């Protein structure tokens, strides 16, 4: 395997695609390659080409979660989502750009089962182990998106700047279809450069997990208030981060037999989050 260290975004995107992958902190990509779930003959290290750090309302995609956890200027929802994600070592290594692009934690997928999301015919979670799985958007693939940070950015209405375009975080994600099983709209040779934040009047992130620390979200709830309007987004409830247009939409959830409890947790956390802001 080859490791490239480009010095400009153009050089980096020129080297991407065709069996090469961008490497940031590597916390997600290195295990996936080692387990054979991602094939790459070239890694393009993007540390020197993707901005890092916070300037006003702009966050470089190469900023680590540990740096954001300590930043008193960013909205509380994002800070709390970072502080509660993964472990201290992973937060020091992992970047916010990489976090948004992490793959599902569904065990069937991670263990290389030929499931629907891997291009097969069957979602094994539907009749199998499904406690961590989805309650929305789950008719094809019932996986639950694990990013706390994506839910926070969705509630905050953040936008992304890539090497090609600017768009709302919501447009980074798509539900996979029979024809295209990707869960993001990013092109193979497109890099996320910056995240542009809005400034809410108040925001928060609440997370239900199996342990009090270091655990993926069972349900994460981000809420942000802009004047009279409150935006709510959830982690861990659908194959992609899920914007809740209204609290009533929780009544339209389609849980699997083993995930109904997540709807009740979401209800409680949404209520608490709204009270908190």
């Amino acid at each position, binding site marked *: 395997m080859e*490791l490239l260290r480009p010095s400009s975004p153009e050089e980096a995107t020129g080297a991407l695609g065709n069996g090469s992958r961008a490497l940031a902190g*590597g*916390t997600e990509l*290195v*295990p996936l390659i*080692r387990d054979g779930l991602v094939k790459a003959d070239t*890694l393009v290290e993007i540390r020197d080409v993707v901005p890092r750090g916070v300037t006003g309302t702009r966050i470089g995609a190469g900023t680590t979660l540990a740096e954001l956890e300590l930043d008193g200027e960013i909205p509380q929802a994002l800070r709390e989502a970072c502080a509660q994600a993964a*472990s*201290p*070592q992973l937060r020091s290594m992992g970047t916010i750009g990489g976090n948004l692009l992490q793959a599902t934690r569904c065990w069937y997928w991670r263990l290389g089962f030929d499931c629907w999301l891997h291009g097969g015919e069957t979602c094994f979670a539907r009749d199998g182990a499904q406690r961590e799985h989805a309650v929305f958007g789950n008719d094809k693939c019932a996986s639950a998106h694990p990013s706390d940070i994506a839910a926070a950015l969705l509630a905050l209405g953040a936008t992304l700047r890539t090497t090609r375009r600017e768009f709302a975080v919501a447009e980074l994600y798509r539900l996979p279809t029979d024809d295209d099983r990707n869960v993001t709209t990013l092109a193979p040779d497109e890099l996320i450069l910056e995240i542009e934040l809005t400034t809410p009047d108040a925001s928060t992130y609440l997370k239900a997990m199996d342990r009090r620390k270091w655990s993926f979200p069972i349900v994460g709830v981000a809420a942000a208030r802009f004047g009279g309007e409150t935006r709510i987004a959830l982690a861990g409830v659908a194959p992609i981060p899920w914007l809740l247009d209204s609290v009533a939409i929780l009544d339209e959830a389609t849980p699997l037999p083993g995930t109904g409890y997540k709807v009740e947790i979401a209800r409680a956390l949404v209520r608490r989050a709204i009270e908190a802001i």
Partner: protein
Amino acid sequence: MGRSLAQVLRDDLGFTGTKVACGEGHCGACTVQLDGVPTLSCITLVHTVGDREVTTIEGLRDHRLIHAFVRTDAVQCGFCTPGQVVSAAALVAANPSPSKDEIQHAMSGNLCRCGTYPKIEEAIRTWQD
């Protein structure tokens, strides 16, 4: 795939104090410091280390934390201990008198199958004694 920092430390350089348990970023047994920052050497590709300084448990041989871990009996099988000490050393370097909450937050990425957590917390709380 390229070799990990843990493989190079253990197999090429003979620094076998650094342990590998899960090998995929979950447990913290392989923690080393890169420029003082606790980092998981099992998922760090060695070619990405660059000119950053690597501190392993061997480099912390004389740290007072080692004595604190022994004094408080914070070691059972000992497999997680090098990683625990490496994380703890970074914590006390930044914050010499961490509170219980701060210890629990900073140490949450180091799992211990033997369940020595209360003793590890005590070792860190009393490391200067």
